[in-house]
């Protein structure tokens, strides 16, 4: 890990610490205080944007573990989010289970379904696996649409509010605390996962899985583990999404969203913990910017624009953004940030 000049590690604990210097501690605690006092002065609209960012962040972290660290490309991630969402809808809505139990169950159910669709990863890699995950996306969404008795079919399903021990999470602010707490735990877990043996095995599999197998890594176990963990995160995100939105429909989980998630982690930076944060914030804020300000503004300023402008502009811009990032900065915003930090620390010798 890069440290500022003059900071040396004298013990193992110091070497392994995530937050090393007093400045880093100060910034971190300041950031936490700012984050958790946000609901006091933010409007409901911005809190809902923050909630969406938090939920997307949990799912994107899972996808990052699967694709960024372990190299198993998955273009069907929102279908696993959908599995988690519908699981909690059925468990809390129809069976009346308490919310914490439904949270864990939706994580596990999404994890197991992800496991099943990850089994082809043992025989194929790269593009073939991408096709398998696209097929998974379609199959899961089709099952959701057609298994009406369980999932409400095309009409969708209502989800009750989350409640822990009597406290009901109705407002955006209360959901904000819940989502941010879970996101924090998830990110901490992902960061530590990357630093342990499992994380190193994932990276070894990504770089050259044959060589990893020669070194003694059990590919079967670890690839499936990557799918399970990635989809567990997706399930948790789906559960929170269901309780946040209140009404689920298969249309909310389309292939376009899946592609957007892959775009998010690539724009943010694959294989880093900071990457999903940056990518998710970038994409979701861009979406909000477009839908709330740019499009109405341009619609009012240039009334001669064709009618398809509103719905067509966002996908076009995101497609262009994905292509531009891949062509110009394939390692994502996180890499640029790391370069900036290094330049800042080494100034004036930063070249």
């Amino acid at each position, binding site marked *: 890990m890069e440290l500022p000049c003059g900071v040396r590690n004298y013990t193992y604990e110091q070497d392994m610490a995530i937050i090393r210097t007093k400045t880093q501690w100060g910034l971190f605690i300041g950031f936490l205080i700012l984050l958790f006092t946000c609901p006091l002065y933010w409007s409901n609209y911005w809190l809902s944007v923050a909630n969406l960012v938090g939920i997307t962040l949990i799912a994107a972290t899972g996808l990052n573990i699967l*694709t960024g660290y372990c*190299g198993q*490309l998955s*273009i069907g991630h929102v279908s696993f989010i959908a599995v988690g969402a519908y699981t909690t809808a059925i468990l809390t809505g129809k069976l009346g289970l308490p919310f914490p139990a439904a949270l864990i169950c939706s994580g596990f159910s999404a994890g197991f379904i992800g496991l099943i*669709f990850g*089994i*082809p990863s043992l*025989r*194929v890699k*790269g*593009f*073939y696996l*991408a*096709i*398998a995950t*696209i*097929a*998974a996306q*379609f*199959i899961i969404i*089709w099952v959701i*649409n*057609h298994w009406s008795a369980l999932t409400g079919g095309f009409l969708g399903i209502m989800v009750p509010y989350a409640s822990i021990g009597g406290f009901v999470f109705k407002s955006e602010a209360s959901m904000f605390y819940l989502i941010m707490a879970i996101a924090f735990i998830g990110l901490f877990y992902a960061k530590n996962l990357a630093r342990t043996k499992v994380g190193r095995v994932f990276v070894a599999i990504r770089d*050259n899985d*044959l*060589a990893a197998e*020669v070194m003694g890594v059990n590919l079967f176990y670890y690839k499936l583990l990557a799918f399970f963990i990635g989809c567990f995160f997706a399930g948790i995100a789906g559960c929170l999404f269901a309780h946040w939105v209140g009404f689920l429909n298969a249309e909310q989980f389309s292939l*376009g969203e899946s*592609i*957007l998630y*892959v*775009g998010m982690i*690539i724009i943010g930076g*694959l294989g880093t913990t900071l990457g999903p944060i940056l990518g998710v914030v970038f994409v979701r804020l861009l979406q909000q910017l477009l839908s709330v300000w740019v499009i109405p503004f341009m619609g009012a300023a240039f009334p001669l624009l*064709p*009618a*398809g*402008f509103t*719905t*067509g*502009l*966002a*996908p*076009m*811009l*995101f*497609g*262009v*953004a*994905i*292509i531009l990032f*891949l*062509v110009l900065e*394939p390692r994502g915003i996180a890499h640029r940030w790391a370069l900036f930090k290094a330049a800042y620390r080494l100034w004036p010798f930063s070249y």
Partner: protein
Amino acid sequence: MAELLQFIITGITVGMVYALIGLGFVLIWKSSNVANLALGQLVLISSWFTYGMLVQAKFPLWLGFILVILFALALGWLTERIALRPLIAQPILSLITVTLGLGYFIEGLVTFIWPWSVDTLPPLFSTEPLHIGPTVVSQEYLGAAAISLALFILLTLYFRYNKMGIAMRATADDQFAVQACGIPVTTIFSTSWMFACVVAAIGGILMSSIGGITYGLVETGLKSFSVVILGGLDSFIGAIVAGPIIGLAENIGGGFLTPLTWPGVKDIIPFIIIIIVLFVKPYGLFGEVRIERI
């Protein structure tokens, strides 16, 4: 019995069109090892452009077709130049994702220019249905199958005898050797992308003349993936053989399973076939098995 024959004929004809679109994919994969995941969207935009030419600009049929072919050529060339030329040596994840981004962009572009989601093309063949035995087959299906077959034969001959076709096959085999022979590999990439777009355009026109222009064309493109997976990613013959198989499975399975299970089972059969093929025989019927060495 009549129903079975109906399903068979529909299945084979639709399968031929899937195979045609899949052929475009195999082309790009064979020559440049890039997986073109934007296939469905390329089909979509070509169909909408055809609509724009034939209905909105009211060009006659022959002129409209020539313009669509030119458009597809230009689209392929632009795509290769802007999105793929800078990424020549990058890992496959970047290549797949850039085609994903391209597909996303094209979908947005289509919504931008033609914001209504469904439309129909003017009929390309006469609407008189033919009677083959006890079944009734609309001429569109037969015309689609005939055109697909003709294109297949043309392309096979092209790859066997034409100098450029042979160069493309050589590039698919060994890029370095081809470069050593003095053939510009970038030209070959451009040509293969242009070909693939033209083939996708023709497939799109045929599909939309059968079923109208909807966003389902993207799903048709995805079903073509099942054709190439079943047939083998780098095999033309595999695409021809697997296309009708998938079409048959879809229609016969849909026809017989729909009353028994849920309606709409027809849509999911190609994707289940993908999963089964990936479990059982990942490289497809005719595909080349990748042997990896460290």
